[in-house]
């Protein structure tokens, strides 16, 4: 095992999108309990540096694997599919139109201070996302259809951003 091992191997977890999150939690904690800088506060300089590198790596791995979108992107990267390079291709028009409609609805609810409507939009979008992640799990873990999965991930990137904007709008109404 070394610092360049992939995130799944670091926690000795199978390289799959469907992941047992509580298992991830407990392995992350097990690893941190061993490598965290607090274990080496009185250690040598080298031990302190190594421990910082390992703990940093464990945090990065945990953050990446915890969130489904990041996990999917990471799996694609491991499979040699560079999202960056493929993100130049335009999204299909119907998807973009749908996006614009969502955005208009959010903007309207926001300016109108409509808390209820924003909550509703959040629920709807969150439900939509769940379905899409189920599909993504199939594409990645069973079909191994990486090109199609890449397309789905790119869509999800838009949608997660949108969800974020709804939450921001809700937060701004709260203050």
């Amino acid at each position, binding site marked *: *095992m*070394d610092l360049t091992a992939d995130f799944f191997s670091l*926690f*000795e977890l199978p390289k799959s999108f469907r992941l047992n999150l509580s298992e991830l939690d407990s*392995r992350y*904690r*097990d*690893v*941190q*309990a*061993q*490598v*965290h*800088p*607090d274990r080496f*506060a*009185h*250690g*040598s*300089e*080298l*031990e302190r540096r*190594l*421990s*910082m590198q*390992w*703990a*940093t790596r464990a*945090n*990065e791995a*945990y*953050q990446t694997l915890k969130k489904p979108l990041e996990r999917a992107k990471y799996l694609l990267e491991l499979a040699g599919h560079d999202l960056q390079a493929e993100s130049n291709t335009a999204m299909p028009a119907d998807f973009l139109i749908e996006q614009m409609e969502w955005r208009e609805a959010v903007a309207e609810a926001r300016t109108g201070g409509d808390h209820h409507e924003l909550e509703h939009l959040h629920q709807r979008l969150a439900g939509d996302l769940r379905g899409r992640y189920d599909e993504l799990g199939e594409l990645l873990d069973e079909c191994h259809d990486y090109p199609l999965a890449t397309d789905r991930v790119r869509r999800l990137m838009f949608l997660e951003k949108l969800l974020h904007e709804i*939450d921001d709008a809700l*937060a701004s109404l*709260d*203050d």
Partner: protein
Amino acid sequence: MALFQIAEPGESAAPHEHKLAVGIDLGTTNSLVATVRSGLAVCLNDDQGRPLLPSVVRYHADGSYEAGYDAQKQQALDPKNTIVSVKRFMGRGLKDIAHLESMPYDFIEAPGMVKLKTITGIKSPVEVSADILKNLKLRAEAALGGELVGAVITVPAYFDDAQRQATKDAARLAGLNVLRLLNEPTAAAIAYGLDNAAEGVYAVYDLGGGTFDISILKLTKGVFEVLATGGDSALGGDDFDHRIFCWVIEQARLQPLSPEDARLLMMRCREAKEFLTLNPEAPITARLNSGELVDVKLDVASFAEITQTLISKTLQPVKKALRDAGLRVDDVKGVVMVGGATRMPQVQKAVGDFFRQEPLTNLDPDKVVALGAATQANLLAGNKTGKDDWLLLDVIPLSLGLETMGGLVEKVIPRNSTIPTARAQEFTTYKDGQTAMAIQVVQGEREMVADCRSLARFELRGIPPMVAGAPRIRVTFQVDADGLLSVTAREQTSGTEASITVKPSYGLSDDEIAEMLKASMTHAKDDAMTRALREAQVEAERMIEATEAALAEDPHLLSAAETEKIKATIAKLRETVAGDNRRLINIAMDDLGYETQEFAHRRMDQSIKRALAGRSVDELQALTPHGEEK
């Protein structure tokens, strides 16, 4: 053995000996030092039995100073040379400091951080804080009868990089080995959580004299995980005093006050504030230098009214922290109150109303941070007794980013990331043949560079001339477990790597610290050289001890030849420790560091494997002496 000859009486370098470590709460108003004795965290009192040390330092013409109650008593007589609430100036420039006009000091603008002109000379807030820390260090050493191996120093969770770095510099200047900078609310959570075997989500609301912090933590068996933190590093009990001060000036129609009168009146306002905690009405009387008599009465209702905006100002960060943690009010199982200013009934009521539950006030809000810090210091020093072991996962309070085109901030590490953390970002040139690039590092949540705090500005030179857009410059941010940042930049396409690492600009260099130490030594019996030698010896002893413990624990990770080599290097280091040549000690330490590098890697590897597989030690012994494939 050489090791024992140089040990001070009362101190021993023997492996399983209890190591003297303390936790220090370096507060805006009050500071404390605590330690773990016979398994129990206790505050160490001064010779008059008082645990608190007012964070006040008075400088005299002869270069001497006093810290604590004596200095506090004199503050109205000698306001210019008596520095109170110096924590508000740590890592701060002149323009960052609120209510400058009601402070009596002669400020001097200096790069990165203000300085104060006193009768002793120009003092940076770092030096003033170091003088407070020295006082506590002496107190601890007297009480414990030996040299400290290290200290955990607490900082407000919402302190930014500049404020943290300044705090660490102050501790080093005071001659303390900083085991860790620990966030104050996290320290409180440790003290509370371990005492109450608490499980679940807790909020720690910490309103001190000059800072406000809110942290949301998840406590599960043996793990303290900070989910989000927020606050205001310039909001505290002092601001309540200031509100009363302004109210009195208005009520009594006072003309602008002299520094002495202002300080006197401010003290009266603070007394009134504290009096109102248990009483319905507080008299405020002061005979000013001008001969004028101030005599007004403030009642609870008016007090609540003039300070209401301050309290709602604390609730904004609370909401934000909850949101960042992805939680709602109902998810919070308990609210721990910390800091003297949480004694105010209107604060308790507002917090209780917000969280829809009675806040927990059964802890001493003055001591809880120091006690938690002591508990953590004990763990970090290696004094754990096996069963009491826990893991602390803390976060960075503010986002870190870089300036991009048009003065915009590109976030590199978002706030509330678990530390230690690192993130790399790639940049390129925008002109053909460009060989240098300016990099500006900022901290804060706003989108424009101008609205964030600038931490460092440096230039990356030696980029090989290429067409615009061809170079790939990788800028890496590393935040360590103290929440401190270092930045490395490197050009990657060319074989020649231009790489630099910067500590943000306001931090003191080792040389500056050594210089300041030397300067301060002219007033002490100690001499800087002896001190540096002693420090090297202690460090070397620590290293020997750690290496020997590792050898005893994991002999199977080394071949016989490797073990011999390490033992020989230890023996050499031991020889130098017995002598008085600091340079030789440092060289021998470097040698040992080099010889044990591979060993350290193998040990780290092994512990991770063990953690994951839960395999028994016996099985691991079967591994080959050369460890596993890398």
